[in-house]
């Protein structure tokens, strides 16, 4: 829509009348009845009492192999080297990489599995620290998606559609619930990668798309300047900056009166937020005062800025300050070849910090109302990609089933949901689609995913698009 159409749209008779009358009426009604008072936003969110007030999403980019981490399939070991029966594979499309493979030999995991905790959670030996927090974990083994490649799959998970150009999960939450802490953004993103970081990530994954722009994810970089251009340049002090912002706000107001351009409101909000962040961000992200035992808990990597461990520590600090949605991305899980050695490295990167995060939140009482999610965009297949040897194999993408785990507010502790077949190929019981997962997370935050929509180009969009059912069985 070009600018004239937009202007006309805003000022057409219907909108003018509804806007003014309803606006006046609503205020009048509000003061008379005091019903449904909402304090943070006009959306009347949350819809019902939330269990989780904050969420940390530990996203493992590249697709971790669930067969080597969470889903124990002894039959694959027994049938080592045998062909994957076509009855199992069915019509599943494969990626271009394996499409030309002549055989699909089954490859059992090289690692030993055992059950841990009172919930008897299956974990492989390369997750020794997860073994110690098994009592807090709620593992979903039957996540599934339609996407076969990384970009559409991650986009699907983060925005609810493979096609993109939609707001990300964090942006929806920021738009719906806002941030309780006025000095920090509602949606923070932290990136890390293992040494062999491979699949790239895109800013669209934490973008606000058509939602107001103050809801985009704020990326914190490692290094001295976590947010670019936040600091005042040399020669400008806080008071000058404040004066400048006040003057700018006045100019913006004049402009809005003329053009009714909503984006300007977003811009003003972001200028103000940036001003507040100038003090709050350095304060919050300062780990120099953390005691030594913290670095023992999270692992020595936590001293290295930009590592996953350091990001977990920052995540905890952000959550302590009531940031609504903290998302970590750790890249490097895409092991098409050389899986056993590569995945051990990745596991080492994330194992201790993820577990430490859970325990650290728990001792501060934050785990009671914070949700932690760990998982990737799809799983990996049971047959070897490339040459299969006793000590080495690769795995291709597998969207039909994969595992994630959740912990914290509102989810069952020490619980496994869903069952896959002996090949780890198909789901036997209790599938959880991406949309179901999104609906469940929103439910935990007090949002009815079907009612939370945004009207855009004549259609009401929502994160779960047109599907999604809350998985009640994982809720405590």
């Amino acid at each position, binding site marked *: 829509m070009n600018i004239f159409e937009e202007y006309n749209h805003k000022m057409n008779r219907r909108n003018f009348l509804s806007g003014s009358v309803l606006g006046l009426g609503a205020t009048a009604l509000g003061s008379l009845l005091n019903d449904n008072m909402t304090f943070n936003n006009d959306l009347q969110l949350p819809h*019902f009492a939330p269990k989780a007030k904050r969420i940390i999403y530990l996203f493992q980019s590249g697709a971790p192999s669930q067969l080597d981490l969470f889903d124990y399939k002894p039959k694959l070991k027994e049938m080592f080297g045998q062909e994957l029966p076509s009855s199992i594979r069915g019509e599943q499309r494969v990626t271009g990489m394996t499409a030309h493979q002549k055989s699909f030999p089954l490859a059992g995991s090289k690692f030993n599995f055992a059950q841990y905790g009172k919930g008897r959670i299956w974990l492989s*030996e390369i997750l020794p620290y997860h073994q110690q927090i098994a009592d807090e974990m709620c593992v979903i083994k039957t996540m599934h998606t339609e996407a076969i490649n990384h970009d559409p799959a991650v986009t699907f998970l983060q925005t609810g559609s493979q096609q993109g150009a939609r707001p990300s999960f964090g942006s929806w939450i920021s738009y719906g619930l806002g941030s309780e802490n006025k*000095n920090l953004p509602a949606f923070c993103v932290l990136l890390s990668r293992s040494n062999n970081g491979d699949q790239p990530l895109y800013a669209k994954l934490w973008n606000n798309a058509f939602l107001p722009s103050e809801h985009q994810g704020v990326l914190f970089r490692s290094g001295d300047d976590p947010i670019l251009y936040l600091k005042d340049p040399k020669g400008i002090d806080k008071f000058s900056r404040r004066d400048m912002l006040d003057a700018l706000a006045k100019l913006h107001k004049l402009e809005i009166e003329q053009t009714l351009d909503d984006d300007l409101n977003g811009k003003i909000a972001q200028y103000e937020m940036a001003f507040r962040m100038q003090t709050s961000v350095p304060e919050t992200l300062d780990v120099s005062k953390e005691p030594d035992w913290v670095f023992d808990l999270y692992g020595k990597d936590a001293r290295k800025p930009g590592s996953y461990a350091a990001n977990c520590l920052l995540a905890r600090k952000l959550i302590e*300050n009531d940031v609504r949605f903290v998302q970590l991305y750790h890249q490097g899980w895409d092991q098409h070849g050389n899986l056993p050695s590569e995945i051990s490295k990745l596991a080492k990167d994330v194992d201790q910090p993820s577990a430490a995060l859970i325990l650290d939140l*728990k001792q501060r*009482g934050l785990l*009671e109302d914070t949700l932690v999610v760990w998982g990737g965009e799809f799983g990996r297949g049971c047959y070897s990609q490339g040459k299969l040897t006793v000590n080495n194999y690769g795995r291709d993408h597998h969207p039909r089933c994969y595992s994630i785990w959740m912990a914290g507010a509102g989810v069952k*502790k020490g619980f496994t949901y869903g069952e896959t077949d002996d090949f780890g190929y198909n789901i036997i019981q209790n599938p959880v689609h991406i949309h179901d997962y999104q609906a469940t997370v929103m439910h935990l935050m007090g949002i009815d995913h079907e009612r939370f929509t945004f009207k855009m180009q004549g259609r009401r969009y929502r994160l779960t698009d047109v599907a999604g059912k809350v998985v009640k069985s994982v809720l405590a």
Partner: protein
Amino acid sequence: MFLTEFFGRLHPLLVHLPIGILLFAFAMILWQRFQKVEIEQAISFALLLGSLSAVFACVAGWFLAQTGEYDADLVFQHQWMGILTAVSGFASYFIKRIRDILTTVTICVLMITGHWGGNLTHGENFLFPKKKDPIKVIATSDNISKEADIASNTTVSTSKKPKEILKKSFLFRDEVLPVLEKKCFSCHSETKKKGGLRLDTEEFIRLGGKNGPVFIAGNPENSPLYFYLLLPEEDDNHMPPKGKPQLTSQEINLLHEWIKQGASFQELLESETFLSAKIIEDPLAENKLPLAAKPDISVEPVTLQDMEALILKSKIEPVSPFLVEQFKQQNIILSHFGTNSNFLMVNFVNVREYHSSMIDDLLKLGNQVVRLRMSQQPVNDTDIKKLSALKNITRLNLEKTAITDGALKYLKDLPKLEQLNLYGTNITDNGLLELTKCPQLKIVFLWQTKTTDRGIEELKRALPHLQIELGGFQFAKPDTVKTKNID
């Protein structure tokens, strides 16, 4: 019909008129006789007025009796005595010759009527309360189980015999029934059946009242007998009604436990009754007993949502937008529990300059506040004292505040407090002693406090169902040899 019910409810009001006026008429007759004054006309007037008001009182009384909430026999007696009062009042007015005698008769009848009326509302033992029977010793041999190894036949286990000791306790008879008697019978027993409900025998409790059964065995949250106790006092359904003696939090918990354990009216095999905190000396006793009484260290999470969910089900008026604005100015965040909920979560995270007067403002919110988060603010003990007026608080976050042990003694005035975060404060074992007085507490965070193992043990013993998070986690170092080989 609403009018008749309303008029019926005027009966307790109206009866005061004939009582006062007829007694005054009698007083005047005595005065006339002994002081020789001439007040015949005044006496006539009083007798007439008194009798007329007695008639109105009777009519109102009849309407009240129609609600059926009172014992039919007692009502019958009281009703006819009341009518007789009115009749003899009129007789005294009209038959002037034997006025004095008739008035005396009227007064006597009036007093009897009044006494029976009092019995109807306050119970027969109101004027002269009966002394309670001494606690019966449960030492009857026929109650003992047929199992061979039972050594003791008393409920208090003090012997150090190595054999298995099973106790029988009559939870309903000894603990629940006295509570019902003290706090409920005045309106829910034989003589008075408010809401058509009687609570004086097992049969009647099971039967329920006008609105159906009052309990579901094993499910206290959906049992009106329990959750009506938790509703805010202003709520019409809150029991006991506002103004009547309320149940203590221990009594409330007793009912919760009793219903949860199956609402048995018979004796139970238990290691200890709920209200007593006796420590069992016999080390073997606990192992052989059913799990009902043991603190649960299961995988199931502590269900904090019970109390909160119950509060959220009830109604409360919304907070005024003026107050909301005031809080916004002070950077105190108020969020609501849902689109249609007027209950609030309060968060001080943005407050830069904390001041104790903010607590005074908070008190204006009253029972809407369910969760309160004041982490890292310089909250002190007097602030907590003021906060104890917010009766609906279920979660209180006081981590890294300036409170000391003194603050904790006000927490027992928060009857619904379930989750308490004290990490990073200067709480010591003395403070934990205060926490033992909060039996409804479900989880407490004590990391980085000045408490010691001893204090924590005491707390565990006093409140075995309490989940205590001590923090200070350390990982066991995994065996890295294996993982190295893979590289």
